[in-house]
Protein backbone atom coordinates (compact mmCIF):
# COMPACT_ATOMS: atom_id res chain seq x y z
CA UNK A 1 0.00 0.00 0.00
CA UNK A 2 1.33 3.39 -0.96
CA UNK A 3 0.98 5.97 1.77
CA UNK A 4 0.85 9.58 0.82
CA UNK A 5 0.14 12.27 3.30
CA UNK A 6 -1.96 14.92 1.66
CA UNK A 7 -0.94 18.38 2.80
CA UNK A 8 -4.11 20.24 3.62
CA UNK A 9 -4.95 23.20 5.81
CA UNK A 10 -4.64 21.92 9.34
CA UNK A 11 -6.15 24.12 12.01
CA UNK A 12 -5.00 22.20 15.07
CA UNK A 13 -2.14 20.02 13.99
CA UNK A 14 0.76 22.47 14.25
CA UNK A 15 2.21 20.84 17.35
CA UNK A 16 1.04 17.31 16.60
CA UNK A 17 -2.20 15.50 16.21
CA UNK A 18 -4.82 15.59 18.92
CA UNK A 19 -6.30 12.21 19.86
CA UNK A 20 -9.49 12.48 21.88
CA UNK A 21 -10.93 9.48 23.71
CA UNK A 22 -14.68 9.87 23.89
CA UNK A 23 -16.57 7.90 26.51
CA UNK A 24 -19.84 6.13 25.82
CA UNK A 25 -21.62 8.51 28.24
CA UNK A 26 -20.31 11.61 26.47
CA UNK A 27 -21.39 10.31 23.08
CA UNK A 28 -24.82 9.22 24.28
CA UNK A 29 -25.46 12.61 25.88
CA UNK A 30 -25.09 14.19 22.46
CA UNK A 31 -27.99 12.27 20.96
CA UNK A 32 -28.53 13.32 17.36
CA UNK A 33 -25.72 15.86 17.59
CA UNK A 34 -23.05 13.19 17.76
CA UNK A 35 -22.51 13.05 13.99
CA UNK A 36 -22.05 16.84 13.93
CA UNK A 37 -19.63 16.66 16.86
CA UNK A 38 -17.58 13.88 15.24
CA UNK A 39 -17.40 15.61 11.89
CA UNK A 40 -16.48 18.99 13.38
CA UNK A 41 -13.72 17.38 15.44
CA UNK A 42 -12.35 15.47 12.44
CA UNK A 43 -12.45 18.59 10.28
CA UNK A 44 -10.40 20.29 13.01
CA UNK A 45 -7.72 17.65 12.41
CA UNK A 46 -8.48 15.51 15.48
CA UNK A 47 -8.54 11.74 15.68
CA UNK A 48 -11.35 10.45 17.89
CA UNK A 49 -11.39 7.13 19.67
CA UNK A 50 -15.01 6.29 20.45
CA UNK A 51 -15.39 3.90 23.39
CA UNK A 52 -18.65 2.73 21.91
CA UNK A 53 -18.74 3.32 18.19
CA UNK A 54 -21.59 4.22 15.93
CA UNK A 55 -24.42 2.00 14.79
CA UNK A 56 -24.32 1.02 11.13
CA UNK A 57 -27.09 3.53 10.35
CA UNK A 58 -25.15 6.28 12.15
CA UNK A 59 -22.07 5.32 10.18
CA UNK A 60 -24.02 5.67 6.96
CA UNK A 61 -25.28 9.06 8.13
CA UNK A 62 -21.67 10.06 8.88
CA UNK A 63 -20.69 9.06 5.32
CA UNK A 64 -23.60 11.03 3.89
CA UNK A 65 -22.82 14.20 5.83
CA UNK A 66 -19.10 13.78 5.12
CA UNK A 67 -19.77 13.65 1.39
CA UNK A 68 -21.78 16.86 1.53
CA UNK A 69 -18.89 18.65 3.27
CA UNK A 70 -15.86 17.45 1.31
CA UNK A 71 -13.73 20.36 0.24
CA UNK A 72 -10.77 19.87 -2.09
CA UNK A 73 -8.46 22.07 -0.01
CA UNK A 74 -9.19 21.23 3.59
CA UNK A 75 -11.24 18.06 3.96
CA UNK A 76 -11.19 14.93 1.80
CA UNK A 77 -13.25 12.68 4.03
CA UNK A 78 -13.00 10.38 7.00
CA UNK A 79 -11.23 7.16 7.83
CA UNK A 80 -13.22 5.01 10.24
CA UNK A 81 -11.40 1.89 11.33
CA UNK A 82 -13.36 0.07 13.98
CA UNK A 83 -15.25 -3.03 14.95
CA UNK A 84 -18.51 -1.14 14.67
CA UNK A 85 -21.42 -3.02 13.21
CA UNK A 86 -19.53 -6.27 13.46
CA UNK A 87 -21.62 -8.26 11.05
CA UNK A 88 -19.31 -11.22 10.94
CA UNK A 89 -20.39 -12.99 14.11
CA UNK A 90 -23.52 -12.65 16.18
CA UNK A 91 -24.78 -14.34 19.28
CA UNK A 92 -27.56 -16.90 18.97
CA UNK A 93 -29.96 -14.52 20.76
CA UNK A 94 -29.09 -11.69 18.36
CA UNK A 95 -29.74 -14.00 15.42
CA UNK A 96 -33.03 -15.23 16.83
CA UNK A 97 -34.21 -11.70 17.55
CA UNK A 98 -32.71 -10.54 14.22
CA UNK A 99 -31.11 -7.66 16.08
CA UNK A 100 -27.99 -5.99 14.76
CA UNK A 101 -24.97 -6.38 17.02
CA UNK A 102 -24.26 -3.41 19.30
CA UNK A 103 -21.60 -0.94 18.21
CA UNK A 104 -18.04 -1.47 19.38
CA UNK A 105 -14.92 0.63 19.70
CA UNK A 106 -14.19 2.82 16.72
CA UNK A 107 -11.61 5.36 15.58
CA UNK A 108 -12.58 8.27 13.36
CA UNK A 109 -10.06 10.61 11.83
CA UNK A 110 -9.36 12.82 8.84
CA UNK A 111 -8.68 10.67 5.78
CA UNK A 112 -5.49 12.59 4.93
CA UNK A 113 -3.95 11.72 8.31
CA UNK A 114 -5.40 8.39 9.39
CA UNK A 115 -4.84 5.30 7.27
CA UNK A 116 -6.05 1.78 7.91
CA UNK A 117 -3.28 -0.62 6.98
CA UNK A 118 -4.83 -3.95 7.77
CA UNK A 119 -8.10 -5.10 9.20
CA UNK A 120 -9.66 -8.42 9.95
CA UNK A 121 -12.45 -9.43 12.28
CA UNK A 122 -10.21 -9.18 15.36
CA UNK A 123 -7.34 -6.81 14.68
CA UNK A 124 -7.06 -3.42 13.07
CA UNK A 125 -3.76 -1.80 12.18
CA UNK A 126 -3.87 1.90 11.44
CA UNK A 127 -1.30 4.65 11.32
CA UNK A 128 -1.43 8.39 11.80
CA UNK A 129 0.65 10.17 9.22
CA UNK A 130 2.48 13.11 10.73
CA UNK A 131 4.56 15.87 9.25
CA UNK A 132 7.61 14.18 10.83
CA UNK A 133 6.97 11.03 8.82
CA UNK A 134 7.01 13.13 5.66
CA UNK A 135 10.28 14.70 6.61
CA UNK A 136 11.92 11.38 7.37
CA UNK A 137 12.51 10.84 3.69
CA UNK A 138 14.43 14.08 3.49
CA UNK A 139 16.78 13.26 6.38
CA UNK A 140 20.18 12.43 4.99
CA UNK A 141 22.80 10.17 6.53
CA UNK A 142 25.39 12.87 5.93
CA UNK A 143 26.14 15.20 8.82
CA UNK A 144 26.51 18.80 7.68
CA UNK A 145 30.05 20.16 8.03
CA UNK A 146 30.53 23.73 9.24
CA UNK A 147 33.04 26.19 7.74
CA UNK A 148 35.11 26.06 10.96
CA UNK A 149 35.38 22.30 10.68
CA UNK A 150 36.49 22.61 7.06
CA UNK A 151 39.28 25.01 8.11
CA UNK A 152 40.48 22.60 10.81
CA UNK A 153 40.48 19.72 8.36
CA UNK A 154 42.48 21.75 5.83
CA UNK A 155 45.08 22.71 8.45
CA UNK A 156 45.48 19.06 9.36
CA UNK A 157 46.29 18.03 5.80
CA UNK A 158 49.80 16.65 5.70
CA UNK A 159 50.15 17.09 9.46
CA UNK A 160 49.94 13.43 10.24
CA UNK A 161 52.83 11.33 11.47
CA UNK A 162 55.39 10.48 8.82
CA UNK A 163 55.06 6.82 8.29
CA UNK A 164 57.18 5.08 5.75
CA UNK A 165 55.35 2.44 3.90
CA UNK A 166 57.68 -0.37 2.96
CA UNK A 167 57.87 -0.92 -0.71
CA UNK A 168 57.80 -4.37 -2.23
CA UNK A 169 60.65 -3.40 -4.48
CA UNK A 170 63.02 -3.01 -1.50
Amino acid at each position, binding site marked *: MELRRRVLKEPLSKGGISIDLISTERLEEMGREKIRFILDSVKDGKVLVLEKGLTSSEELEL*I*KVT*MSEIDHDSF*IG*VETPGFTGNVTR*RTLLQRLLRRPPPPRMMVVGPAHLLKTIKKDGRTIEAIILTRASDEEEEISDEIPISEDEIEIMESMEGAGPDIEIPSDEE
Partner: protein
Amino acid sequence: MGLFDSLLKGLLGLFRKKQASIGIYGPPNAGKTTLANRISRDWTGKPMGKTSEIPHETRKAKERKEVVIKAAGSRISFDIVDTPGIATKIDFHNFVEDYGMDEDKAKQRAKEATEGVIEAIKWLDKVDGVLLVMDAAEDPFNQVNVTLLGNLEARKLPTIIVANKMDLDEASPATIRDAFPQHPTIPVSALAGYGMDNLYKAMMKYFR
Protein backbone atom coordinates in the same frame (compact mmCIF):
# COMPACT_ATOMS: atom_id res chain seq x y z
CA MET B 1 -68.20 -1.79 -5.16
CA GLY B 2 -70.05 -4.92 -6.09
CA LEU B 3 -69.09 -8.45 -5.22
CA PHE B 4 -67.90 -9.12 -8.77
CA ASP B 5 -65.63 -6.05 -8.74
CA SER B 6 -64.16 -7.09 -5.39
CA LEU B 7 -63.49 -10.60 -6.69
CA LEU B 8 -61.96 -9.29 -9.89
CA LYS B 9 -59.71 -6.85 -7.98
CA GLY B 10 -58.63 -9.63 -5.65
CA LEU B 11 -57.82 -11.95 -8.54
CA LEU B 12 -55.90 -9.26 -10.40
CA GLY B 13 -54.00 -8.42 -7.20
CA LEU B 14 -52.80 -12.01 -7.02
CA PHE B 15 -51.10 -11.66 -10.39
CA ARG B 16 -49.96 -8.06 -10.05
CA LYS B 17 -46.90 -8.63 -7.90
CA LYS B 18 -44.92 -5.50 -7.18
CA GLN B 19 -41.88 -5.23 -9.41
CA ALA B 20 -38.88 -5.94 -7.17
CA SER B 21 -36.17 -3.32 -7.34
CA ILE B 22 -32.66 -4.73 -6.90
CA GLY B 23 -29.83 -2.34 -6.03
CA ILE B 24 -26.25 -3.13 -7.00
CA TYR B 25 -24.08 -1.76 -4.21
CA GLY B 26 -20.45 -1.78 -3.16
CA PRO B 27 -17.28 0.24 -2.86
CA PRO B 28 -15.74 1.94 -5.94
CA ASN B 29 -14.08 -0.37 -8.49
CA ALA B 30 -15.66 -3.57 -7.16
CA GLY B 31 -17.24 -4.14 -10.58
CA LYS B 32 -20.80 -2.96 -9.98
CA THR B 33 -21.37 -1.52 -13.43
CA THR B 34 -19.64 -4.48 -15.08
CA LEU B 35 -22.11 -6.72 -13.24
CA ALA B 36 -25.05 -4.47 -14.12
CA ASN B 37 -23.97 -4.58 -17.78
CA ARG B 38 -23.62 -8.35 -17.68
CA ILE B 39 -27.11 -8.83 -16.20
CA SER B 40 -28.67 -6.29 -18.53
CA ARG B 41 -26.94 -7.67 -21.64
CA ASP B 42 -27.85 -11.24 -20.72
CA TRP B 43 -31.58 -10.46 -20.46
CA THR B 44 -32.25 -7.32 -22.48
CA GLY B 45 -29.34 -7.25 -24.91
CA LYS B 46 -28.37 -3.74 -23.82
CA PRO B 47 -25.65 -2.50 -21.41
CA MET B 48 -26.39 -0.13 -18.53
CA GLY B 49 -23.34 2.08 -18.18
CA LYS B 50 -19.76 2.90 -18.99
CA THR B 51 -17.00 1.18 -17.05
CA SER B 52 -13.51 2.41 -16.30
CA GLU B 53 -10.46 1.53 -14.24
CA ILE B 54 -10.67 5.01 -12.75
CA PRO B 55 -12.73 4.92 -9.55
CA HIS B 56 -16.12 6.65 -9.42
CA GLU B 57 -16.92 6.19 -13.10
CA THR B 58 -20.59 5.75 -12.14
CA ARG B 59 -21.60 8.96 -10.43
CA LYS B 60 -25.34 8.79 -10.95
CA ALA B 61 -27.60 5.83 -10.25
CA LYS B 62 -28.91 4.12 -13.38
CA GLU B 63 -32.05 2.03 -13.48
CA ARG B 64 -33.10 -0.57 -16.03
CA LYS B 65 -36.72 -1.49 -15.60
CA GLU B 66 -38.33 -4.84 -16.19
CA VAL B 67 -35.32 -7.05 -16.66
CA VAL B 68 -36.91 -10.48 -16.94
CA ILE B 69 -34.61 -13.17 -15.59
CA LYS B 70 -35.27 -16.86 -16.19
CA ALA B 71 -33.51 -19.40 -14.02
CA ALA B 72 -34.20 -22.50 -11.97
CA GLY B 73 -37.49 -23.03 -13.80
CA SER B 74 -38.80 -19.58 -12.79
CA ARG B 75 -39.20 -16.25 -14.50
CA ILE B 76 -39.10 -12.98 -12.53
CA SER B 77 -39.02 -9.39 -13.66
CA PHE B 78 -36.69 -7.09 -11.74
CA ASP B 79 -35.82 -3.41 -11.90
CA ILE B 80 -32.02 -3.29 -11.70
CA VAL B 81 -30.40 -0.21 -10.16
CA ASP B 82 -26.68 0.35 -10.64
CA THR B 83 -25.55 2.71 -7.87
CA PRO B 84 -22.38 4.83 -7.55
CA GLY B 85 -19.64 3.37 -5.35
CA ILE B 86 -19.86 4.22 -1.69
CA ALA B 87 -16.72 5.68 -0.11
CA THR B 88 -15.78 7.50 3.08
CA LYS B 89 -13.26 9.73 1.33
CA ILE B 90 -12.77 11.22 -2.11
CA ASP B 91 -9.59 13.04 -3.04
CA PHE B 92 -9.29 14.60 -6.48
CA HIS B 93 -5.48 14.36 -6.25
CA ASN B 94 -5.77 10.59 -6.71
CA PHE B 95 -7.36 11.08 -10.14
CA VAL B 96 -4.54 13.45 -11.11
CA GLU B 97 -1.61 11.49 -9.71
CA ASP B 98 -2.76 7.94 -10.38
CA TYR B 99 -4.63 8.41 -13.66
CA GLY B 100 -3.09 11.55 -15.12
CA MET B 101 -6.37 13.43 -15.16
CA ASP B 102 -6.50 17.15 -15.73
CA GLU B 103 -6.94 18.98 -12.36
CA ASP B 104 -10.21 20.71 -13.24
CA LYS B 105 -11.71 17.48 -14.53
CA ALA B 106 -10.48 15.65 -11.45
CA LYS B 107 -12.12 18.20 -9.15
CA GLN B 108 -15.36 17.96 -11.08
CA ARG B 109 -15.24 14.16 -10.95
CA ALA B 110 -14.62 14.26 -7.19
CA LYS B 111 -17.54 16.64 -6.68
CA GLU B 112 -19.88 14.46 -8.73
CA ALA B 113 -18.62 11.38 -6.89
CA THR B 114 -19.57 12.87 -3.51
CA GLU B 115 -23.06 13.55 -4.86
CA GLY B 116 -23.18 10.01 -6.22
CA VAL B 117 -22.44 8.52 -2.80
CA ILE B 118 -25.30 10.50 -1.27
CA GLU B 119 -27.63 9.36 -4.07
CA ALA B 120 -26.62 5.72 -3.59
CA ILE B 121 -27.39 5.95 0.12
CA LYS B 122 -30.80 7.48 -0.61
CA TRP B 123 -31.61 4.60 -2.98
CA LEU B 124 -31.38 2.20 -0.05
CA ASP B 125 -34.85 3.42 0.96
CA LYS B 126 -36.28 2.36 -2.40
CA VAL B 127 -34.77 -1.04 -3.18
CA ASP B 128 -36.26 -4.41 -2.21
CA GLY B 129 -33.06 -6.43 -2.38
CA VAL B 130 -29.34 -5.85 -2.80
CA LEU B 131 -26.50 -7.40 -4.73
CA LEU B 132 -23.50 -6.34 -2.65
CA VAL B 133 -20.48 -6.50 -4.94
CA MET B 134 -17.11 -7.15 -3.33
CA ASP B 135 -13.77 -7.44 -5.08
CA ALA B 136 -12.71 -11.01 -4.28
CA ALA B 137 -9.07 -10.02 -4.69
CA GLU B 138 -9.30 -7.37 -1.95
CA ASP B 139 -9.74 -7.39 1.83
CA PRO B 140 -13.46 -8.03 2.49
CA PHE B 141 -13.34 -6.21 5.84
CA ASN B 142 -13.15 -2.72 4.38
CA GLN B 143 -15.35 -0.28 6.25
CA VAL B 144 -17.74 0.31 3.36
CA ASN B 145 -18.57 -3.41 3.09
CA VAL B 146 -19.09 -3.73 6.83
CA THR B 147 -21.16 -0.54 7.12
CA LEU B 148 -23.31 -1.49 4.15
CA LEU B 149 -23.95 -5.01 5.42
CA GLY B 150 -24.87 -3.66 8.84
CA ASN B 151 -27.40 -1.33 7.24
CA LEU B 152 -28.84 -4.00 4.97
CA GLU B 153 -29.31 -6.28 7.96
CA ALA B 154 -30.90 -3.50 10.03
CA ARG B 155 -33.31 -2.82 7.15
CA LYS B 156 -33.91 -6.57 6.71
CA LEU B 157 -33.20 -6.28 3.00
CA PRO B 158 -32.48 -9.61 1.27
CA THR B 159 -28.82 -9.51 0.29
CA ILE B 160 -26.59 -11.59 -1.93
CA ILE B 161 -22.86 -10.97 -1.71
CA VAL B 162 -21.34 -11.11 -5.17
CA ALA B 163 -17.67 -12.11 -4.88
CA ASN B 164 -16.57 -10.54 -8.13
CA LYS B 165 -13.34 -10.76 -10.16
CA MET B 166 -12.90 -14.48 -9.57
CA ASP B 167 -11.00 -14.60 -12.85
CA LEU B 168 -8.05 -12.95 -11.08
CA ASP B 169 -5.35 -15.26 -9.68
CA GLU B 170 -5.40 -13.57 -6.28
CA ALA B 171 -9.19 -13.78 -5.93
CA SER B 172 -10.43 -15.62 -2.87
CA PRO B 173 -14.23 -15.88 -2.70
CA ALA B 174 -13.78 -18.23 0.28
CA THR B 175 -12.33 -15.35 2.30
CA ILE B 176 -15.52 -13.37 1.73
CA ARG B 177 -17.69 -16.37 2.57
CA ASP B 178 -15.76 -16.90 5.81
CA ALA B 179 -15.97 -13.22 6.68
CA PHE B 180 -19.75 -12.97 6.27
CA PRO B 181 -21.10 -16.50 6.74
CA GLN B 182 -24.68 -15.39 7.39
CA HIS B 183 -25.15 -14.17 3.80
CA PRO B 184 -25.15 -16.17 0.56
CA THR B 185 -21.94 -15.52 -1.35
CA ILE B 186 -21.80 -16.21 -5.09
CA PRO B 187 -18.40 -16.15 -6.80
CA VAL B 188 -18.57 -14.58 -10.27
CA SER B 189 -16.52 -12.84 -12.87
CA ALA B 190 -18.88 -10.23 -14.25
CA LEU B 191 -16.26 -9.40 -16.87
CA ALA B 192 -15.79 -12.95 -18.14
CA GLY B 193 -19.32 -14.13 -17.35
CA TYR B 194 -18.25 -16.91 -14.96
CA GLY B 195 -20.71 -17.91 -12.27
CA MET B 196 -23.61 -15.86 -13.62
CA ASP B 197 -25.96 -18.86 -13.80
CA ASN B 198 -25.42 -19.44 -10.09
CA LEU B 199 -26.10 -15.78 -9.41
CA TYR B 200 -29.39 -15.87 -11.34
CA LYS B 201 -30.47 -18.98 -9.43
CA ALA B 202 -29.64 -17.25 -6.16
CA MET B 203 -31.62 -14.17 -7.23
CA MET B 204 -34.63 -16.39 -7.88
CA LYS B 205 -34.25 -17.94 -4.45
CA TYR B 206 -33.58 -14.86 -2.31
CA PHE B 207 -35.40 -12.06 -4.17
CA ARG B 208 -38.60 -13.93 -4.94
